[in-house]
């Protein structure tokens, strides 16, 4: 595995988001072990791995919701723990796998919730905030759903509205002068519960955001083909360890797919889309020892 892992130690000159030797344990159960990678401004990084490989935990660490047990996560070279919650939320937003509401809000209200980090206590969203929320909805093609009840939307619509709410976190009022800092979107399995059509909708929305707004993204997913259609770099994660990392064309190979999922697969460049496609065709016996390590 050493030859594969060497990719993880690669260093960039101007990292936007950087994880260095990050380990994390829930109580005594070690979930992540010395994970390192970095995200360049405007990059789309995929965290790929089977269920239970620690992807969601890694994303929560990146979002500052958890603190690493060991190692360091930095945004623009600044340790996440040292950034104020509201400041962080203006630059980095999270989109969970699914969003279930306890009470029924309208789509616009959900988008406006993204303005939270910009408001002082007791401040009410002004016309400018409403404009920014509407603009965010427009960016994900959900502007016409504005008055709908969120609970009645389809899975794909919900996901795009939640992405819009995340984008509203980045929106800057005219008074917030200065250059717009690079924004990071963290998405946890954004397509896991969607059918093919909605998967395509979400993928094209993400590609467009990356192209038009140069939104940087970290996307956790177990769907290799979805990752191949959106990400430029990937980290392969299995049982909390990095198996391989690097540009997707270099990393996505039959041997890495076998090491990741225990399947034999054909990896080809798709003639029409131009990105890699993975077709699994046989199950293999587990190669990696089942190491649920206790510390």
């Amino acid at each position: 595995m050493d030859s594969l892992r060497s990719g993880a130690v690669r260093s960039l000159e101007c990292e936007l988001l950087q994880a260095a030797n990050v380990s994390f344990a829930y109580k005594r159960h070690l979930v992540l072990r010395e994970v390192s990678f970095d995200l360049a401004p405007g990059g789309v990084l995929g965290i790929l791995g089977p269920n239970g490989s620690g992807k969601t935990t890694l994303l929560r660490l990146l979002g500052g919701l958890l603190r690493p047990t060991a190692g360091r996560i930095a945004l623009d070279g600044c340790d996440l723990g040292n950034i104020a919650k509201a400041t962080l939320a203006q630059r980095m937003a999270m989109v969970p796998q699914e969003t279930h509401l306890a009470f029924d809000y309208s789509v616009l209200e959900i988008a406006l919730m993204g303005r939270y980090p910009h408001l002082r206590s007791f401040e009410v969203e002004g016309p400018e905030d409403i404009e920014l929320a509407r603009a965010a909805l427009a960016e994900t093609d959900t502007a016409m759903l504005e008055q709908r009840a969120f609970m009645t939307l389809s899975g794909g619509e919900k996901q795009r509205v939640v992405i819009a709410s995340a984008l509203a976190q980045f929106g800057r009022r005219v008074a917030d002068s200065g250059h717009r800092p690079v924004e990071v979107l963290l998405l946890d399995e954004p397509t896991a519960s969607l059918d093919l059509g909605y998967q395509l909708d979400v993928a094209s929305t993400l590609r467009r955001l990356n192209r038009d707004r140069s939104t940087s993204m970290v996307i956790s997913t177990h769907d290799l083909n979805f990752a191949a259609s959106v990400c430029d770099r990937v980290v392969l994660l299995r049982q909390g360890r990095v198996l391989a990392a690097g540009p997707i064309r270099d990393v996505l190979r039959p041997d890495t797919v076998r090491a990741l999922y225990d399947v034999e697969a054909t990896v080809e460049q798709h003639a029409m889309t131009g990105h890699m496609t993975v077709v699994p065709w046989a199950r293999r016996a587990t190669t990696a020892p089942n190491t649920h390590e206790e510390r």
Partner: protein
Amino acid sequence: MRASRRLLASTDEEAVVAPGNRRWSLRRRLTVALSGFGGLAIITLTVAPLLGPTPIGLGRVFDTSIPFADNVDAQIFFIARLPRALAGALVGASLAVAGVVFQALLRNPLATPFTLGVSAGASLGAMLVITLGVPVAVSGIPAVPIASLLGSLGAAGVVYSMATLRHRGLSTTVLLLAGVTLNSFFSAIIMFVQYSADFTQTFQTVRWLMGNLDVSGFQPIVAALPLTGAAFAMFATLPRALNLLTLGSDSAAARGVDVLRTQRVAFLSASLATGAAVSLSGPIGFIGIVIPHLVRLIVGADHRVVMPASACLGAAFLVGCDVVARTIMAPFELPVGVITALTGGPFFLWLLVRRQ
């Protein structure tokens, strides 16, 4: 292709537009809701003391030429009815907002102020004092309200420490389970003590458990006011964070909400408001679940409107129910809890059915 699918998806829009008028700005919704529900509360509160089995004249009540000791109308108004209406307003507002807060905290629309064992603790405290025959007042302070307040805060303390003991942060699942368990546990003790108590004591406890707004004087209200005031001051800091909490705690935290602090303040304030209300009137059911849902159907889900509107409607509803309880079978009084459940229950079911 895509456009046509979107069009199809939005044709049945009529049925799925979010409840409440969302096209208005928040300020406008807040103004309209507060003038509507607040006006209702003020009207109810003004009219309620004038209604009752004994007719009184407003002119005579405020006629200062008659000494108070001889002015029966003024006595009925100021000693019997006005404190009672004010107690109803205080209890109704507290229970309604506490219901909203518990529902948001637990992310569960079925939660009530009594879900987490606060009322069972209060009931146990009150009935222990009644049964053990503690004198009615200890150095001027009536024993039953004090005991029920201590009982409710004790129960809240147990539930809270259970939910925080072995978890990072506050586990709402443990909170819910511990609360429900504590409710049954306290009910079992109450049953046991009742079984071994004599007839008079049992009668007194049962009466207390039914809830009663007959506070006879302003003193109990003044005693409850600091606690209720503290709870409402904390409520005021919560609405926006509670909105975000309904997205889930991770989503809220990622938008910059201090989730743990919000949960703590929510639990503490709602428990305090419930404890103070129950010690004043005994447990009066149904307000904490019917009023929040009714308000949400009218104004939408935004807690910045729902919380003040619920306070006003809760106050108006309980004061109104108490008038019915006092008058409908005069000269006998019905327990006000009977009226809240009898009127609120079917109405709520009708709303539910109509909404489907």
